[in-house]
């Protein structure tokens, strides 16, 4: 983070996909900053490039040009191996379909990112129990994903995302697969993480109700940011 409180700085970002001889532009000259502790919602129609932008910020895809500086590190200059290590420490992922490993218990799923750290078994256990307590599933840690409801699965996924205390949390349609009540519970949880733990959250969503929790909403359309610095008025 720099002295201005900016945690993510994106400059002149371009990304296109190639299909045969065809080049399909997805993101066109995207530039904006995200302040530390900000809750940002990226919205836009399907194919507008919001998930691609999220992937680029999260370091799971590489742009054609431009830079993404997160916590002082330009992630576009990192190799695949460096990116893997960087993601482990700096990014917590929340997916639309939870993406839990079905043969592992809630505890083991949350513990997964910690395997990559030098923490002892006892330390890992303490971290996992704390994360599951934060998401309100301390009593479900021995359950397998198949024994949990959709909302509970997503809460386990959130616990997995926060267990390493990452720099940013990225969420791709976190309520997209949930009923309304579960979706509200998840958004309340994310709001609480943002307010109480000062977590920087970048969320892609189609759902205006989910976006209501964000401080800032940025709209993408055909790869272009249509509102440069929109405060949430939803």
């Amino acid at each position, binding site marked *: 983070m720099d002295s201005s409180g900016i945690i993510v700085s994106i400059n002149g970002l371009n990304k296109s996909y190639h299909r045969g001889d065809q080049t399909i532009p997805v993101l066109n000259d995207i530039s904006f900053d995200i302040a530390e502790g900000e809750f940002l919602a990226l919205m836009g129609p399907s194919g507008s490039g919001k998930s691609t932008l999220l*992937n680029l910020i999260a370091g799971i895809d590489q742009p054609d040009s431009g830079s993404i500086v997160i916590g002082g590190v330009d992630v576009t200059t990192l190799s*695949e191996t460096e990116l*893997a*290590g960087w*993601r*482990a420490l700096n990014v917590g992922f929340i997916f639309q379909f939870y993406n839990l490993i079905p*043969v592992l218990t809630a505890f083991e799923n949350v513990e997964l990112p910690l395997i990559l750290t030098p923490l002892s078994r006892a330390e890992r256990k303490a971290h996992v129990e704390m994360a599951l307590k934060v998401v309100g599933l301390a009593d479900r840690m021995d359950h397998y994903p198949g024994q949990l409801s959709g909302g509970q699965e997503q809460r386990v996924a959130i616990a997995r995302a926060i267990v390493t205390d990452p720099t940013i949390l990225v969420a791709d349609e976190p309520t997209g697969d949930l009923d309304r009540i579960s979706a509200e519970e998840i958004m309340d949880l994310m709001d609480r993480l943002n307010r109480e733990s000062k977590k920087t959250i970048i969320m892609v969503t189609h759902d205006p109700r989910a976006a209501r929790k964000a401080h800032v909403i940025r709209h993408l359309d055909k790869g272009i940011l249509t509102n440069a610095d929109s405060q949430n008025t939803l």
Partner: protein
Amino acid sequence: MQILKILFKNAFRHKLRTGLTILSITIALLAFGLLRTVVNAWYAGVEASSAYRLVTRNAVSIIFSLPLSYKERIRQVDGVSEVSWGNWFGGIYIDEKNFFANFAVDAKTYFDLYREYVIPDDQKIAFFRDRKGFVAGRKLAQRFGWKIGDTIVLKGTIYPGNWEFVLRGIYRGREPNADETVFMFHWDYLNESLKKTAPTRADQVGFYMIGIQDPARAISVSGNIDGLFKNSFAETITETEKAFTLGFVAMSDTIITAIELVSFVVIIIILAVVANTVAMSVRERTNEYAVFKTLGFGGWRIAGLILGESIVITMMGCVVGIAATFPAAAAFAAAMGAYFPVFNVEATTIWLDIVFCLAVGLLAAIIPVYRTLKVKIADGLRMIE
């Protein structure tokens, strides 16, 4: 949670598929182990042969005999320490299916020369004293339930008639590769009978077994022995016991090569089976590996997860396969003991099992690892089981 736990949980996600794959590996290893042991059994006589012994036979063919008088001349050759002799008797015990090797040997010199056959002293003395006595290997006696003092009748094929013998001794092998299925009786008993019934066949020896002082001089001693009988009516060929035994094995060389080839083909088949299982499992979990990547698992760790799972499956099959090989070999030996007197699963076979299983585990995972690492995280996350 440890990585090993993830490997086992992943390996047994599809219990039926993994179980069948392990069963296939088990059966393949069993087949490999038995085939290798059959090949080894073929060579057991060669392995057990001594570098300190030579065998002299008729130069025309083993089926032609040599005069007994050669023994004194052979004994005088420089480098020769002991001389014994014998004949293949070819007797049948009750029925042809009860086949076992039976020889008439010069008892005292024979057991001086073959110190790997251990007989209790009292039994040895009893055997030496009884001209109709015979000595049987431990396995042979066990096979037919013979006890010391039992009278056995062999029906002669080369030497017609019913030949009566009394069991005076049971020998054991000093080493595990010693043949414990041989029947040996006094050459004098055979010779004296022949003198009465077929005098022209008396005083004839099937082969001489010669002890030498220095294995390094085996070739020169052999040459000197054969030189003694050059241009005689019964020329000789003398060779090391190993070469002599190999000569018999060579008759089945093509079959042995075919068995060896099949044993390796079995391993190649199982490689395809394991590769298919691992490829299917990994392909179904492309999405999960993308999740692992997003969590920070690098290429080596992902490769380790896939390789580890493949090796867990193959090594489980390996352990079960090796464990099953020993009782299967024992059952095989019990059923086919007459044809394979020494049928021991060798340590080399077990090491080969382990090496092949590790190799199969590694090779089977190569393509799935390559494919998984090639998939971009974003593409992998879009794939749904």
